[in-house]
């Protein structure tokens, strides 16, 4: 399976994407998935439309992308984390 490029984005690229990045890193390790995590600001997503396989973000996005977009707020609130993890895993195992 080719290495997947996962974009992790928040408004500033400082705080929440760092936490989400850490969570996905851990998840990938647990599931033996080889992922290329790229932590960016949501405004930078446009530069990755040709290479990314998935966008996980805490910021809202109205644009349509050629890859799935998953809301990662649950990693911050702790509410619904399992469902989000499952969603990410499913997207990565495709």
């Amino acid at each position, binding site marked *: 399976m080719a290495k997947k490029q996962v974009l992790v984005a928040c*408004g500033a*690229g400082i*705080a*929440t994407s*760092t*936490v989400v990045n850490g969570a996905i890193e851990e998840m990938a390790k647990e599931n033996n998935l080889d992922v290329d995590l790229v932590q960016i600001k949501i405004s930078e997503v446009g530069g990755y439309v040709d290479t990314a396989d998935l966008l996980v973000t805490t*910021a809202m996005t109205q644009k349509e992308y050629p890859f799935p977009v998953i809301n990662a*707020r649950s990693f911050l*609130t*702790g509410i619904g984390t399992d469902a989000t993890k499952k969603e990410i895993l499913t997207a990565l195992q495709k």
Partner: protein
Amino acid sequence: MNGANILYSVVNMMSNIYFNESVILLNVEAASKEEVLEKMGRNLIDENLVKESFIPAIIAREEEYATGLPTAGVAVAIPHTDVEHVQRKTISIGVLKDAVEFGVMGDDKETIPVRIVFMLAMDEAHSQLSLLQQLMSVFQTEETLLSILKEENKTNIRSLLEEKLDFGVLEGEK
């Protein structure tokens, strides 16, 4: 003071994240989220932790990317902005007298009545992972949020957060 305590104090002094009672604000009265950000930001400017540009920047960022989180028991918000407005990294806590509506993170319509604001002033992108993770676990513990909400003594809030957040081991972490 035993050896461990002395060591802890030394590490704590060296640590470059600024955290003490001066960045904890209780009974903050504000009619809007902008007013909350203005008051908390002003305090950080007075403490020489952020630049004047921090206030307009954090207000604009909150407008564009809301940071309210529907956490268990007490809703919180984690406003923050770009690193160039920060002089020294800190986490400022504001307990609001009455709830103020903040937009919900990742949602363009929904708002939530926030009672505790954790204003993050970070001077480096992509850093402080374990501190941020610990902070998120505070948000996931209703009991801790409720204790902060009803506490009237800043030193007690400081101790509680120092216990949960482990500021002392941050030095050198990237």
